[in-house]
Structure formats: C-alpha cells, structure tokens
C-alpha cells in the first residue's frame, strides 16, 4: 500500500495534474478571500469555502480522472494484479495519494484565517471547523471520482461522467424545490430510479438476471407501498434529493455548527465508493 501511495504521489508530481489542481484551488480561495474578507471586510473565512465549493465540480474530476482509468489504458493494471498486492491495498494507496495532493493546498489555505486574525476578530473555531469539513467533503467527492475512473479506460470519459454527477449533486437541493412533491410524482420518480439502477447493475456486472431482479423487486416495493399508504411518498423525492446532497451538509458547518452526522455521512460515502472501486477492479478479473 505504501509502495502504491509513493508511486502515485511521484506520478502526480511528475505530471501537471497535482499542480493544476492545487493552483485552481488556491486561486479560487484567493479570489473568494479577496471578495469576502478583504473587499467586503467580512470576518468569516468559512463563507469563502462555501463560495469555493462550486469549483470542486471541475477540479475533482480533473484530479481523479486518471487514477484508475490510466492504469487500464496503459495495461499496467495487469502489473498491479500480478504483484503481491490486494486490490484493496491498491485502491486505498491511490486514494491516500489523492488525499495528500488535496491536503497540500489546504494546508496553505488554513493559514489564511490566522493572517486575517492579525487584523481583527475572526471566528477561528468556525473557520477551522469549516476547513475540516471542507476537507472531508472533498475527500468524499474524490472517492466518487475514483469510482467513476475505475469504470472506464478513457480519462476524458471519466471526467465527462464525474462533472455532471458532482454538478447534479451540487444543484440537487435547488432542483429539489422544482421537482414534483406529490405522492404520485415521487413514486414514479422512484420507479424510474429503480430502472436506472438496474441499467447500472447490468453495465457493471454484465449479468442481466441480477439487474432485472433488482429493478423489478424495487419497483414492486415502491408500487405496493404506494397503494398501501401513499402518504409516505408525500414530498419524498425532494427530501431524498436534499438528503443525498454532499454540499448541503457542508453549509451547516459554514453556519457555525459542527455536525457530527454530516461527518459520519461523508465517511460512509467514502467507504461506500472505495468499496465499489475495489469491486469494479475485482470485476475485471471475472469477465
């Protein structure tokens, strides 16, 4: 695992990716700090972070697109399979390397509140709480990007999928206000989602039976619950969309609350997508 971590880090620093990622992140934090903290003289550094979180939509896919896709393209994944390493070690090694690259600009950023504190009163606790949350949210997004990169051997495709996925997640709360909140609408949407899940399973496992069974069972569950008690579905879809949003939970930290449930949620997302990445790599041995 350490070998993979070291190798990935040297790889990233040999190429431009790590520098571009760091430069973008620092540039936008800089712009945010200039607008909020300097020009408008706001003492809250966390506002800058909430402003910058939109940048993740672009820079996380840039960072993660090559992580596994490139191995496949260069056929170096065969080397990883034949080395005495487990797939979990490979994925975690790679993920930790990404975290290190993400942490470096963040270390610089974490000096900012201290600098501002020299010139007035800054809520350091909220600032650093938000920076920690910002790190964990980014880590969750990186795990999603890693998983998407493991699905394809084309870097561009990996980025092309990751951007809309993160963008949808970013806007899911605002979108939630516009989607149907009636019971019927929610039920239909859940059926469609079940169908989509089936398509994804079919694509990942190449096993049609499993895909059909999962979809049909889920749709049946939705239908039965709908006819039994349709009040359950009242406003369900918007609620789910809000709950799934990674960004919405981050705003709690910005408002000054250190929300442990959100941290647990982020960690769960990380574990889930890393697990999926391992499975996606393992699957390659079986098809």
């Amino acid at each position, binding site marked *: 695992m*350490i*070998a*993979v971590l*070291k*190798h990935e880090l*040297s*790889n990233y620093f*040999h*190429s431009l990716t790590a520098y571009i990622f760091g430069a973008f992140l620092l540039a936008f934090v800089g712009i945010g700090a200039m607008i909020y903290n300097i020009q408008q003289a706001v003492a809250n550094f966390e506002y800058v972070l909430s402003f910058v979180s939109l940048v993740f939509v672009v820079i996380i896919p840039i960072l993660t697109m090559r992580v596994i896709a490139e191995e496949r393209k*260069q*056929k*170096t*994944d*065969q*080397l990883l*399979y*034949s*080395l*005495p*390493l*487990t797939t979990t070690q490979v994925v975690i090694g790679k993920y930790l390397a990404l975290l290190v690259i993400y942490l470096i600009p963040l270390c610089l950023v974490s000096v900012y509140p201290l600098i501002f504190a020299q010139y007035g009163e800054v809520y350091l606790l909220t600032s650093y709480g938000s920076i920690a949350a910002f790190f964990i949210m980014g880590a969750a997004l990186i795990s999603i990007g890693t998983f998407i990169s493991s699905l394809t051997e084309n870097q561009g495709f990996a980025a092309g999928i990751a951007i809309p996925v993160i963008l949808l997640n970013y806007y899911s709360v605002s979108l939630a206000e516009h989607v149907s909140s009636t019971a019927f609408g929610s039920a239909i949407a859940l059926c469609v989602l079940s169908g989509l899940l089936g398509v994804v399973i079919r694509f990942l496992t190449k096993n049609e039976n499993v895909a059909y069974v999962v979809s049909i069972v889920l749709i049946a569950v939705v239908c039965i619950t709908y006819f039994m008690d349709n009040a359950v579905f009242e406003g369900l879809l918007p609620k789910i969309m809000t709950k799934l949003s990674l960004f919405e939970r981050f705003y709690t930290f910005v408002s000054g609350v250190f929300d442990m449930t959100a941290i647990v949620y982020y960690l769960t997302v990380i574990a889930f997508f890393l697990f999926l990445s391992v499975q996606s790599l393992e699957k390659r*041995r*079986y*098809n």
Partner: protein
Amino acid sequence: MITVEHLTKRYGDFTAVNNLSFEIEEGHVYGFLGPNGAGKSTTMNIMTGCLSATEGRVRIGGYDIFEEPDKAKRLMGYLPEQPPLYMNETPVEYLKFVGEAKGLKGRELAEQIEKVISQTKLEDVRNRLISKLSKGYRQRVGIAQALLGNPKVIILDEPTVGLDPLQIIEIRDLIGQLGQEHTVILSSHILSEVQAICEKVLIIAKGKLVAFDKPENLEKLLMASNTVSFIAEAKTDEIDEILKGMWVAADWQMKDMGNGSTCVEVQIEQGEASNLCRSIFFAFAKEGKALLELTSKKANLEDVFIELTESDIAERGLTESVLEVTEMEEKEIKEQKTVEKIIIKEEEYKMDGTEESGVEDK
C-alpha cells in the same frame, strides 16, 4: 512447482480454456505453444492471478493462487503480452516501485535493482524515460520487473513479439541464462523459437492441451511420415521403372513438371531417409538420368504443431484465426525447405564429382 488442475475459463458461451491440466517441474525452460486465440495468454493470466478461473485450480509451490494469492505471487515474476510500463517514468523509478510492491526494502531493494539492470543490460538507459525507449529495451524493462524479488518461476507471455532479429537473439540468450537459475515458462506462436530454447513444450489448441513433451519426442511422433522428394529429368514411366527396381521405396506420387522433368514424392516405410536418397541417386545415375533436386523432408516441431492443431481444427470446424496462423507456418516451412534444398544440392554437386570419377574407374 506449478500444478494446474482442470482449469476452465468461460466468457459467456465462449470457452477460452477447456479443462487444462499439467504439471511444471522446477528448473526447466517450458514453452507454451499455440496459434493465436488458443488460450495461452488466458492460461498465463490465470496462473499469475490476473484473471479468475471458471473452474479448476492452480498451485504455485504449494500455494493456491486463488486462496493464498499473496504467497503464490511472491514466487512468480510475470511479463504480460504488453509490457505493463509507466511511460512517464525511468526504468530505475519503475523498478523501484515494483520492488517495493514486492516487499523489498532499503539496501536489498537497491542491490536487486542493480542486479536485474545488469542482467537485462539496461545500464545505458537506466535514467531515460520509458516512453523514449525502443521496443526491445521496453521488453527488457518488463523482464527486469519480472526478475525483481528473485522469484522461482518467471512467466513470459510472447517475449519476442515485435522485436527485430537482433533483439530476438538477445532476448533468447537472456531467457537461456534465466533458465539456469529459474523455472521459465514462455509462450510463443513462433515454433523455431520454442524449439531453440525450451526443454519441454506444451501445445495448446482451442483451450485444450494437445501435447506436452520434449521437442525431440514430439518430432519422433511424426517420424513415420518422413518423405523424400526429388525432381528428375525423366518421364513418369521411366521413373516408375527405376523406383520399382528399388526395395526401399514403398509408395510414390508423381507430377509432370513440363520441360521433360518430373517431381516425385517417395514415402519411406522403414530405414533412414539418407539411405533412400543415396539409392535414388545411384539408381538414377546408373540410368543416366539427371537429378535436378533431391530433398529429404524431416518432420520437425512445425509439422507436429500443424498436425496436432489441424486435427483439432478438423474435429471442431475451421476458424479464421487458426487458419491464418497455419498458413503463416506453412510459409515458414517452405522457406526452411528451400534452405535444405540448397544444402542438399551443394552436397549433390560434391558427390557428383566423386561419383563421376568412380564410374570412370569402372
């Protein structure tokens, strides 16, 4: 060292490897032979833990590759068909990563890297980017990677494909050297290569093991079908006459070549081909008929290969990929035959001189 038992790999309806079983002992060079798409790479990928098997098991030095992959993989070095290289690194950086992943550390790692670099003669390019290296050097970096950690078994998948003749010779020499210390398994569809470097040959066709023996023994398999062919400046009935008078010739076919010469193929039932050649030569010389060409065709590994794989094709119906290969092999055989012909012609010429003087004496 390696035991493969009832190995089967299916992709949907397609069976790539079909109930393959064999055992590989320590300290030999083994050749894995088969036409393209025969299942060589699939088998090697399964043996090295890169692919799962549908059925069956593989044991490396007593460790099951599926159950104890970590221990089994430490005994092996693998070079896949396409060398798995990181193009933006130098050989030294690359070897360092592989060595660390194999669990080497500190001084041991540095020593091993130096050792494999000198073994594979990479000293000149050690600090150049792999993307800038020629194919032969890349292949060597791939082999160097497999050698790290001093594994007992080295598995090389088509190590000489795409190299120029000089590089091929170098890689073959290297494999020969490796064979002294390690068990080497290499796959190839080039028969002469396997014949030259391997002590034992496994022939695979359509995912099945069709032969597993020493190259010499495999050739013996086909000894019965040895033939001698010659072109004589004579008419078919004259040739019939002469051959009938000879006790060694059992059966022959003739083809009129036009311009007064005839091509004849004679099957040998017993005895050496050279004996038949000699008697044909004297018989025709006695009759005053000139021999334009006299060739003894020996069965070699290529014939065994074609025989074994073609009989398999006949059983299962033809596929294009297999056909292509056999056509290629046939071409190779033809080339080889012409070489033999030239040699025999030279000998013939020499003999001619002595023979003439002998006749004069009489």
